[in-house]
């Protein structure tokens, strides 16, 4: 086969050039193997950041978190490979974690597009931990598509090129006369040969570097089409396997009896032997985090945990409650600057509190671990398997290459699976017991001891003169966000663990994700993080639901002071044409400005992140008959009755999944604004069940929801997984003010109202399993 020129050449008239990317010719490899294997190499061809027009750009306008992770991924992206099987299928192990966001499907679409192969013929699996990928195995910040868009297509395009070359040999025709379509290559005269028949012929004995041109965007037929989830049938028939469903021999159910206070520790167990004799129980051992029990069934684990008599050392927050944490945050708030503004300028200041929120997924922290004397094997839903592998190896005293870490599809993440608390604990317990374990956190543990979105106090200060905004400052003081997962690799993880390292990393993430988006003169946003006693993490959309809500309420206040409609005010001051178009789209779709009954109102907000722009309009019903609805063990309160969302997501890979991600993000935003939080009382979180946590339930769901995808001028794909949250949360807050006349200052708005539940006991840490299930049958 003729090897095309290895020298990258600029594409004269490609669509990527049109969209501001300077070439669509890239280098890659055909790797040696029995069948065709191709790999992508991006060292020679990066994607330059797009220019933005702005007078005084904020850092995130020029270079954001997506750019950081994409750049970190670039040097090792050549290690991703596509294999063509003799059945004509394309196989690809994605070095990312699927938790429902749909990246397995979008990856299959990218491959199908460049390979001219039906999507059903592309098999995408999740790669095991691959330490050689260094930065390139982190799933976070909604960056998957941005960072893999080009390398995956390069590998697929090279595969198609090699198959065409092989077909030329096969038919004795020249490549130019051949056409690839739906996994088959056609030669003149109607002769055809399938990819599967060509893969051995196309295989290479050695690794060869080749150059390839990617398909121009205007020729896309798969990218941009609505494709449904490939695993939907498995999910709806119960065949989809999550970690706890895997059949690993002898990995018996295991649970941990945990302390009554946050991050407490076990001191002494009074009845170890008695509990070891309980039905089904095989092992009981004390570990760092509590007392682990292994039994024939999880039910028997629960019974044994409840029977354990453990004395505990108090955790570090004992004696403190929500109010103490807020006082600490207030005293840590960085001062505002002193922008030079005219004497007659007016100043507006606001302070908002965002309480702790649980980022529990429905699948609790869970892992299977089998730690032996000389090797270990771990299965779990992991967004960061390389760091998990390294830390587990350290914890059990094995070389890293003796620890095999399998990434299993997760039952939701929302940031939770950036960490590997379950996997690390499972490995330690397995080692302590000398047996395989199937470790599961009880829901009460997952909520009380699991990671949370840190509480924060956000202040804004705006100066204006007449109807001109002169400056906008935001000071965000937050309980420390744990970023010690770094960028997916232990070197960066260690950097964040260095003294004051976490501050720097957090400040970097903050600056890389925040962008006010309005022409407000001098703009300045700063973060200060204090208090590392909590188990925190990046919950879906990290800082933005909080910072954005503070910004948009301030914006509504300015609009009031200027006597302007909130939509018109935003439209006039939106910094980019993409934002204006997205605002116009959402306002039109939502009938912005329509007459609303007393006690109800619309609210509007924007957000800009993940290479995209979003805007949301909600209608909120705050009338007593709605607010005071009685549903047992439930947060009712104000209800969003209609939610309209517009997104300019850049180049859209799969509009079906994009809509699904926005719908999910919107329901998160509604929960954060209205119902869902955890309350800290005397060093422990009160919530121990889904009814307590009050994440959005059917009775909180807007009966009307609409997502509109805005035609984008950007040829670059943006992130979707987190993009729905911030604008929705802020729009609900703004609607609440307009409906009630009271500006909300604490979130969720219902946090300070009397608890809607009776607090479950802390000791024993798990509630008993009910026995009255048959009484509810109707």
């Amino acid at each position, binding site marked *: 086969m003729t090897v095309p020129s290895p020298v990258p050449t600029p594409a004269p008239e490609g669509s990527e050039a049109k969209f501001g990317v300077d070439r669509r010719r890239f280098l890659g490899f055909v790797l040696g193997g029995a069948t065709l294997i191709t790999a992508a190499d991006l060292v020679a061809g990066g994607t330059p950041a797009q220019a933005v027009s702005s007078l005084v750009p904020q850092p995130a306008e020029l270079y954001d978190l997506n750019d950081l992770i994409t750049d970190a991924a670039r040097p090792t992206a050549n290690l991703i490979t596509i294999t063509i099987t003799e059945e004509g299928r394309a196989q690809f192990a994605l070095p990312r974690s699927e938790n429902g966001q749909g990246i397995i499907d979008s990856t299959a679409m990218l491959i199908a597009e460049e390979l001219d192969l039906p999507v059903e013929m592309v098999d995408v699996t999740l790669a095991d931990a691959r330490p050689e990928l260094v930065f390139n195995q982190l799933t976070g910040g909604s960056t998957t598509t941005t960072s893999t868009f080009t390398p995956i297509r390069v590998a697929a395009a090279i595969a198609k090129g090699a198959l065409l070359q092989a077909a030329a040999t096969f038919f004795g025709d020249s490549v130019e006369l051949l056409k690839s379509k739906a996994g088959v290559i056609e030669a003149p005269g109607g002769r055809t040969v399938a990819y599967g028949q060509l893969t051995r012929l196309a295989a290479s004995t050695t690794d060869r570097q080749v150059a390839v041109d990617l398909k121009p965007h205007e020729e896309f037929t798969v990218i941009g089409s609505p494709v449904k989830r490939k695993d939907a049938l498995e999910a709806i028939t119960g065949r*989809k396997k999550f970690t706890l469903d895997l059949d690993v021999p002898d990995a018996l159910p295991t649970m941990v009896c945990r302390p009554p206070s946050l991050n407490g520790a076990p001191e002494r167990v009074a009845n170890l032997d008695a509990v070891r004799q309980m039905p089904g129980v095989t092992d009981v051992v004390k570990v760092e985090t509590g007392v682990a029990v292994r039994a024939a069934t999880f039910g028997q684990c629960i019974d044994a945990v409840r029977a354990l008599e453990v004395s505990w050392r108090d955790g570090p927050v004992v004696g403190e409650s929500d109010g103490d944490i807020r006082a600490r945050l207030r005293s840590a708030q960085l001062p505002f600057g002193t922008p030079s503004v005219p004497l007659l300028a007016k100043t507006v200041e606001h302070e908002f509190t965002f309480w702790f929120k649980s980022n529990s997924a429905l699948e609790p922290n869970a892992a299977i671990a089998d730690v032996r004397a000389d090797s270990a094997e771990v299965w779990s839903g992991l967004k960061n398997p390389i760091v998990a592998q390294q830390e587990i190896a350290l914890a059990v005293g094995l070389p890293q290459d003796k620890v095999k870490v399998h990434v299993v599809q997760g039952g939701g993440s929302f940031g939770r699976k950036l960490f590997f608390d379950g996997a690390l604990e499972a490995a330690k317990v397995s080692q302590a017991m000398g047996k395989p374990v199937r470790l599961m956190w009880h*829901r009460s543990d997952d909520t009380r001891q699991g990671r949370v979105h840190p509480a924060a106090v956000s202040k804004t200060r705006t100066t204006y003169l007449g109807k001109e905004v002169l400056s906008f400052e935001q000071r965000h003081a937050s309980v420390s966000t744990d970023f010690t997962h770094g960028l997916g690799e232990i070197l960066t993880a260690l950097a964040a663990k260095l003294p004051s390292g976490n501050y720097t990393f957090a400040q970097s993430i903050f600056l890389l994700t925040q962008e006010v988006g309005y022409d407000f003169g001098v703009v300045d946003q700063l973060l200060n993080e204090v208090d590392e006693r909590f188990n925190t993490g990046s919950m879906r959309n990290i800082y933005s639901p909080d910072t954005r809500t503070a910004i948009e309420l301030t914006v509504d206040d300015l609009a009031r002071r200027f006597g302007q409609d909130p939509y018109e005010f935003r439209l006039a001051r939106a910094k980019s044409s993409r934002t204006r178009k997205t605002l116009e789209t959402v306002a039109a779709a939502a009938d912005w400005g329509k007459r609303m009954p007393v006690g109800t109102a619309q609210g509007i907000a924007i957000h800009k992140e993940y290479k995209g722009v979003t805007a949301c309009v909600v209608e909120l019903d705050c009338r007593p008959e709605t607010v005071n609805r009685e549903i047992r063990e439930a947060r009712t309160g104000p209800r969003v009755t209609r939610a309209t969302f517009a997104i300019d997501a850049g180049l859209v890979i799969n509009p079906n999944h994009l809509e699904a991600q926005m719908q999910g993000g919107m329901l998160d935003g509604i929960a954060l604004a209205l119902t869902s939080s955890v309350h800290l009382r005397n060093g422990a979180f009160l919530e121990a069940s889904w009814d307590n946590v009050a*994440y959005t339930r059917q009775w909180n769901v807007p009966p009307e929801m609409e997502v509109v995808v805005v035609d984008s001028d950007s040829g670059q794909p943006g992130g979707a997984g987190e993009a729905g949250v911030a604008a929705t949360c802020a729009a609900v807050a703004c609607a609440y003010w307009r409906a009630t006349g009271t500006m909300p200052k604490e979130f969720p708005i219902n946090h300070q109202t009397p608890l809607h539940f009776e607090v479950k006991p802390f000791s024993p840490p798990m509630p008993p399993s009910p026995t009255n299930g*048959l009484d509810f049958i109707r």
Partner: protein
Amino acid sequence: MPDHTFLVNGERVTVDVEDDVRLLWVLRDRLGITGPKYGCGINVCKACTSHLNGKAFNPCAVPVSALRKKDEITTIEGLADTVDGDLHPMQEAWLEFDVAQCGYCQPGQIMAAVDKVRQVQEAGREITDDDLDEIRNICRCGTYFRIRQAIKAGAAAMG
């Protein structure tokens, strides 16, 4: 340990397990039937929703000893076998609206939806938004809106 005999998805099973073990664990840990999921263990999240003699219930809250020999459990794995065709109409509706994201709650959602529609249709009514508001199953991915669309379509197909 005592033997417990009942029907699961059309098959008679006998399990040797303590009386008080909840059925969810008998299904998952002893019989390897993993469609019903754990989400709370206290009959709140409804991820384990299955059917007992055709009606929705939550096996996390039922001791195995409460079952009688003639009792028939249907889990998500057996739902399609209760109708003609490859899938239950509610499962077809789920595919049509591409409801699932992570998929963890979806078996319970579908089993609850089928039962909700049965109750409404037995009362001679069409399913309403108020009926949908009563469904307590959690979906942490927030697929609720597509769930509502799918249940309405599934109800029409079941009617």
